[in-house]
């Protein structure tokens, strides 16, 4: 029964090299997926919200509700 000769030297170095490659791949995948699946949609959502946002109308709504302690309700 003959199997391939196992690696006898430089085991830590080869382990480190393999781990570095795996870590690099995983990090790249995770970072790009976070950017394109989470960050970009969020930025778009914020831009969309503030494109047509009327802050004065919103403030008037809050005053009318009686929730502003510093502004008299008319």
């Amino acid at each position, binding site marked *: 029964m003959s199997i391939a000769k196992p690696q006898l030297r430089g085991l830590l170095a080869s382990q480190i090299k393999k781990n570095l490659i795996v870590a690099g791949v995983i990090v790249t995948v995770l970072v790009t997926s976070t950017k394109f699946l989470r960050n970009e949609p*969020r930025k778009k*959502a*914020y831009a969309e*919200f503030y494109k047509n946002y009327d802050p004065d109308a*919103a403030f008037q*709504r*809050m005053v009318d*509700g009686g*929730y502003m302690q510093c502004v008299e309700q008319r």
Partner: protein
Amino acid sequence: MASRMMALALRHQPAASKTSLIVRAAHSGSVNPHLAEKLEKLGNRDVVGFGWNGEPTYYDRPDFPMPAIRFKENTPDVLALRAKEKEDWKKLSIQEKKALYRASFCQTFAEMKYPTGEWKMHLGNTLIVFALAIYISLWMAAYIYDPDPISFDEEHQKAQLKRMLTLEVNPIHGLSANWDYENKRWKK
């Protein structure tokens, strides 16, 4: 200290025997009782190395495969096999090779690494503790805690929600994002 030096010295010999240990002990002047007890337990076994700490102990460890002593004591047939081992190994039958292994070691790697199923006990105990914790917390809620404050009732919670929507809490991704301000109702 003398016994430790003897163990260190014996490391350099391929197989020491008890007699050489006793001879060295006699030369050093006295045999300490610790060493004598160890020699008794050692019996007829060869000391074949330093082991993991210099003591002549045997244990099956996958991370340190070479214990300091052989497993079984030397008997005449084992010694005969050892003599045969010094010649061509192709002449040894598979039974003889296995006998030589079992004379020096208790279990094979496959046997010592075999899963024990102990994890099931640990998982079961953990789940039992979780269940006890849930029982206790339910009992506490039923009998020990004071009644909820008034702000927990339906009317007060509705008022709080109305305030949060009017003040536009989390208007982009959270609460107020789901409220339709024109039609005064939740978005579909």
